[in-house]
């Protein structure tokens, strides 16, 4: 039986403090700077995406190319809850119930894929995940379930549940606040994992899986646990971002591979396996995005290159450069060079 490990709890809170402080600053800015709340919400989305993705990729060194499928699973899960309640009533219950179903579906997906592919080594896992989002998308479209290729529109149902004004609040400020809450949960989960046996096991797996196995670590169990936690957080993010905030869940949107690429870029830019990495990664990413939209896109456009999808045409070389030149990312680089006091903070 497990007694609460107060030492681990205290260490993890200490570890989480800088990241939580940064999110608090974002929260203050969200309310303090007029007209910029959507920019903050966007940074937040990417930071949470990175934070959730990081729990698996950063800690295990495995990469999930189908990660966006968890966001999609969450978005569909949330919508299913609303469709279940529609006509029955239940008012605000739709948010907790929606998040619960989103989490259950995302966890089941992670459990299923993980149980099959995480028994195997990294290459096979990557191979298994590359088809997850496409496979699920075509399953939804091909079987004509959950709205098929058209998708689910749930704005009307949400308005029926909590009224027009209630919905206005839910889809804007409330959704963003829940996103902040999710960011906090993701940070605390990460730091708790880092401070417990699981974190040490994952670190051992990342460094040398065979050695970890030889030491008696149940590598498959820990990998699946990290995968499921990462998947559930991703599911909650998808539920908040598309279902609650957007009110629409379209397969063409929620299965978009771009989000997986963005998650990889953010984690790699910031520093895989670190707590602060995803926040800095998201900030750099938004900054790059802004720069490319304002300065690079017009240049390319005047050269006759269509600027749509420009996003990825710039992201890919950046990703390559980071992997070759700075595989540790920003926070990783600071950590390996900074004096030890600072090093403690950015862990």
């Amino acid at each position, binding site marked *: 039986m497990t007694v609460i490990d107060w030492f681990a709890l205290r260490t993890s809170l200490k570890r989480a403090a800088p990241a939580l402080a940064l999110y608090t600053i974002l929260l203050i800015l969200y309310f303090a700077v007029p007209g910029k709340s959507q920019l903050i919400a966007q940074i937040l989305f990417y930071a949470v995406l990175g934070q959730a993705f990081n729990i698996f990729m950063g800690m295990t060194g495995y990469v999930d190319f189908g990660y966006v499928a968890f966001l999609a699973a969450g978005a569909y899960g949330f919508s299913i809850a609303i469709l279940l309640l529609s006509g029955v009533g239940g008012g605000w219950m739709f948010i907790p119930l929606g998040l619960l179903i989103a989490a259950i579906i995302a966890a089941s997906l992670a459990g299923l894929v993980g149980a099959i592919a995480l028994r195997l080594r990294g290459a096979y896992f990557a191979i298994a995940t590359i088809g997850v989002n496409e496979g699920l998308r075509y399953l939804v479209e091909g079987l004509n379930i959950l709205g098929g290729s058209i998708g689910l529109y749930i704005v009307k149902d949400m308005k029926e549940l909590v009224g027009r004004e209630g919905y206005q609040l839910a889809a804007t400020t409330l959704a963003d606040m829940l996103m902040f809450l999710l960011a906090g949960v993701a940070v605390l989960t990460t730091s708790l994992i880092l401070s417990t046996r699981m974190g040490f096991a994952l670190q051992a797996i990342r460094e040398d899986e065979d050695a970890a196995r030889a030491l008696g670590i149940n590598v498959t169990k820990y990998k699946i646990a990290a995968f499921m936690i990462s998947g559930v957080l991703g599911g909650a993010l998808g539920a908040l971002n598309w279902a609650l905030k957007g009110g629409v869940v379209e397969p063409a949107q929620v299965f978009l591979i771009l989000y997986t690429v963005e998650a990889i870029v953010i984690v790699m830019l910031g520093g895989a396996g670190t707590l602060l990495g995803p926040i800095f990664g998201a900030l750099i990413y938004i900054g790059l995005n802004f720069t490319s939209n304002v300065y690079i896109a017009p240049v390319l456009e005047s050269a006759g290159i269509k600027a749509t999808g420009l996003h990825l045409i710039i*992201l890919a070389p950046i990703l390559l450069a980071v992997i070759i030149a700075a595989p540790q990312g920003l926070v990783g680089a600071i950590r390996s060079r900074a004096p030890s006091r600072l090093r403690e903070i950015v862990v």
Partner: protein
Amino acid sequence: MEVGQIFATILYGTLIGVIYGVATVGLNVIFGVLRIVNVGHGAFIMVGAYTTLVLYGSLGVPPPITIAASILLGAVLGLITYYLVIKHLVDAPELATLIATFAIGILLQETVKAIYGSDTRGFSWNLGFAEVLNVNIVYSRLAAALLGLLLLIALYALIYRTKLGLAMRAVVQDKEGAMVVGINVDRIYALSYTLGIMITVASGSVLAIYLQSGIHPYMGEIYTLKGFVIAVMGGLGSIIGAFVAGVLFGLFENASYLILSQIEGIQPLVLTRSIAFLLLLTILLLKPTGLFRR
């Protein structure tokens, strides 16, 4: 179901299966020698398809000749990506090469999209057809499968009948041992990777000749998935395995389409894409080392 439908399923399943084999074997060559999984695999197939589309569609170059152009382009792309990216990551953690090859694939897709747009395109190269059992046997498809088979035979001969192939196989067997006997392992890596890319781009041309439609910048994604299914089925790294598994997968895919199309209210063509994924999970669950190994 009539006899004709079943005949068509077997015939076209086999023909596309041969092409699947060619379209997968590059993945196996690269994994076999460098132990790198090329996640951007499908994008190189797409580049080959565009090569044929552009050379035949705009310049009128006969499609079989465009395969030669694809082989050349594959050599150029292979060498560039190897020396700019892969070379630096050969000893890096697996994560690095996975993400790097993924990024290369995306870069290719977006570059083609920037140049040719994202419209789905096609061309028409008609050689006529014969009718057997009410089934049209389209000659251009036969030709495509035949050209694919020739490519496979050429690759097989290169690996099992030449000195370069011998050196490649030596590196696969024992990297240090190969170094000791004077094989330049770095050069073998570069050549094997480039060879894998060359045959993959060439397979895109063969595929384009077979399909003659559905060519767009993101068409490669589904072939990455199918390639992985076939590669895992045949055993990662095995050339003969890729061929046999390719044909099996082609037959399986066409048969599942035939069966699914009997069911009302679903979209069989879309579903066959999911089947590739479900099949992959099943194989990974049951026999991840490939169906043909002990």
